[in-house]
């Protein structure tokens, strides 16, 4: 659950890193493209317009001077019209001439439909009719850029010095505008392409950076899952390679450390196993003579008899302790084996209590006929520990109930409850810990401190479990659950079956979930 959360978090993080990279690249590309395009556009526009304008104005001036010179001083309106149409042409620009003729003021245009004096701004007319005192009171050529019905035009005007008509020209700048528009389009498309290119570059750069980062993340995850031999391939000398190298070093140190700890743990386990095995030989010899001593105790000196009885009883206790210790080492080493047999569980529980003379102090509610394929010796160990624990700490009456749950592959549920003070909340998670004593003030109790831990191990090896809680009416409540049959089917005749309790055991699979 935690890991999943971490995984989702990690995914979001590297995605956002990618997004950030793309955003930065795009921003840089956009700024560069827009400024370059903008400058190029404005320079181009200026150049194009100036060139078009200059050529039109030069042409107009020359043409006006040439034609005006051929006109009489007070030309007839007709001849003005001829001159206008000679100067202007529909292809390049329209011309308007105005002068005072014998028939009065006359204004003619080369194309009456598209050009009239009204189109000429008043400011331009004023400027055209102004004599420039700084230049011998001559008239100058003036021009303006205007927009008529949404179309750009260049309008210019000049008055012939030394008397003559005033000429105006109107040139459409539509062609230039079209050129400039297509230039703007090209620049826009170029900017867009630059942006897309930048995004692709950012993606590639992001991948180049993020691939090793993701590999590192995956490697760290594998390491966390316990694959301590996980290593990254280090290539190059950049920061990412340095990071991979650091990871590899860390993983190697971790692996070495874990190996060391494992070896040390295995050594200490082996020591306990060997030690308890070694204890057995002298214990066997001593035990062999305890019966002799016990039988003779009656006849011995009253001073010596208690000493002999003490030796006998403590020898038995030592025996039990060593046996328990060996059982624990078997569980730790994974060599504990399950020897299953089909038994009537109620009979088993009764026999277990009968063997320990508990039948009078325990209420048993167990229907006969509940059959289970279990290891009878291990069930006996579990029940002896659970009931013994209840009698010792809870006191009578101890109640034991048996019921069966589920179908053919169901489980048996045995609960053991007492009427004692119950288990303090802070102790509950530790009741199955080895050598955990619920009452710390009690320096030494009769138990080995291993009983419940061994009971739990015995339940686990069956694929079952034991839970501890406090009952609704007070008192401790232990619940044992065992599968009715082991998880793997045994052979037809063999009631004996080795169970692999060790992780990665010796070929026998199943038995435990």
């Amino acid at each position, binding site marked *: 659950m935690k890991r999943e959360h971490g995984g989702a978090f990690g995914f979001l993080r590297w995605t956002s890193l990618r997004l950030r990279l793309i955003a930065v690249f795009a921003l840089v590309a956009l700024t560069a493209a827009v400024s370059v395009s903008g400058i190029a556009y404005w320079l181009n526009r200026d150049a194009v317009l100036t060139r078009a304008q200059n050529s039109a104005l030069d042409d107009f001036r020359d043409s006006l001077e040439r034609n005006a010179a051929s006109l009489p001083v007070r030309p007839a309106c007709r001849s003005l019209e001829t001159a206008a149409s000679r100067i202007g042409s529909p292809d390049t620009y329209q011309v308007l001439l105005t002068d005072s003729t014998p028939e009065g003021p006359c204004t003619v245009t080369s194309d009456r439909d598209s050009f009239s004096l009204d189109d000429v701004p008043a400011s331009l007319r004023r400027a055209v009719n102004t004599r420039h005192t700084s230049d011998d009171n001559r008239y100058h050529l003036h021009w303006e850029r205007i927009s008529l019905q949404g179309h750009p035009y260049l309008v210019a005007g000049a008055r012939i010095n030394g008397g003559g008509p005033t000429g105006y020209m109107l040139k459409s700048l539509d062609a230039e505008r079209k050129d400039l528009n297509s230039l703007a389009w090209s620049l826009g498309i170029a900017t867009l392409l630059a942006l897309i290119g930048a995004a692709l570059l950012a993606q590639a750069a992001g991948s180049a950076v993020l691939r090793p980062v993701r590999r590192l993340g995956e490697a760290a995850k594998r390491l966390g899952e316990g694959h301590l031999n996980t290593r990254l391939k280090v290539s190059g000398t950049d920061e990412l390679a340095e990071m991979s190298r650091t990871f590899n070093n860390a993983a190697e140190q971790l692996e070495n450390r874990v190996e060391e700890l494992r070896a040390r743990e295995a050594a200490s386990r082996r020591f306990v196993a060997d030690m308890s095995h070694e204890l*057995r030989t002298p214990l*066997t010899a001593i035990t062999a*003579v305890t019966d*002799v001593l016990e039988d003779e105790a009656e006849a011995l000196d009253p001073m010596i008899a208690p000493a002999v009885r003490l030796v006998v009883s403590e020898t038995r206790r030592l025996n039990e302790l060593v046996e328990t210790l060996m059982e624990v080492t078997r569980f730790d080493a994974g060599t504990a084996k399950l020897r299953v047999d089909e038994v009537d569980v109620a009979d088993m529980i009764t026999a277990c209590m009968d063997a320990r003379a508990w039948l009078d102090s325990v209420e048993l509610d167990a229907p006969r006929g509940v059959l289970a394929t279990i290891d009878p010796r291990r069930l*006996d160990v579990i029940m002896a520990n659970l009931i013994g624990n209840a009698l010792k700490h809870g006191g009578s009456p101890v109640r034991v109930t048996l019921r069966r749950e589920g179908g053919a592959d169901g489980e048996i549920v045995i609960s053991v409850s007492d009427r004692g003070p119950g288990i303090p909340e802070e102790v509950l998670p530790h009741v199955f810990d080895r050598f955990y004593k619920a009452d710390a003030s009690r320096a030494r109790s009769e138990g080995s401190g291993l009983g419940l831990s061994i009971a739990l191990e015995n339940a686990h090896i069956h694929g079952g479990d034991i839970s501890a809680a406090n009952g609704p009416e007070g008192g401790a409540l232990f619940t044992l659950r065992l599968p009715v049959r082991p998880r793997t089917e045994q052979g037809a*005749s063999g009631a004996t079956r080795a169970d692999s309790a060790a992780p990665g055991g010796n070929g026998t699979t199943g038995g435990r979930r």
Partner: protein
Amino acid sequence: MAPVPFLLLIEDDDAIRTGLELGLSRQGHRVVAAATGEDGLKLLKEQRPDLIVLDVMLPGIDGFEVCRRIRRTDQLPIILLTARSDDIDVVVGLESGADDYVIKPVQPRVLDARIRAVLRRGERDSTDSAAFGSIVIDRSAMTVTKDGQDLQLTPTELRLLLELSRRPGQALSRQQLLRLVWEHDYLGDSRLVDACVQRLRAKIEDVPSSPTLIRTVRGVGYRLDTPQ
């Protein structure tokens, strides 16, 4: 009253050997002890004991080998002394022909009970006889013959066959057989039954791998049938 049982104890550890000699003598047995398998086999030939208590871990030839060598010629009961009950030792020991086993450290009282239970298996309890196919069980002579030939059965094998033959066609559970033959309590080791059945089949069945006399009843135990 049966005569004092005469035991041969083969155990290499001096302290254990001395302790068990003391304890078993105290329980009313006559004990002769050997420290190695070789010495034990020699003593067996010289003294003809009623029963052998045999340690598994021995220097030189180990307990299993001693067991196998004894079984080649003798059918006297053998009880193994072993380190732990869920060890492979138990299985190998029973396959080598041992009748029962006890786990160290053992109280002489417990060992005594086992010894007496094993020795009782050889005692006759009725005087009739029964036939199952080619097998004839003579309960008065305590002999079993196959096609007229005497079969060499250990007292445990014989007792198992007698108990099964007393209830022909009826399945007996391993726990029932443990009580009847081995006189074990409710925590008896069912491997004793399985190993003994295997040995018995090897002696009485025509084809031990597909038995027609002692049948396995799945989920229950074993049954002795009259072949059809």
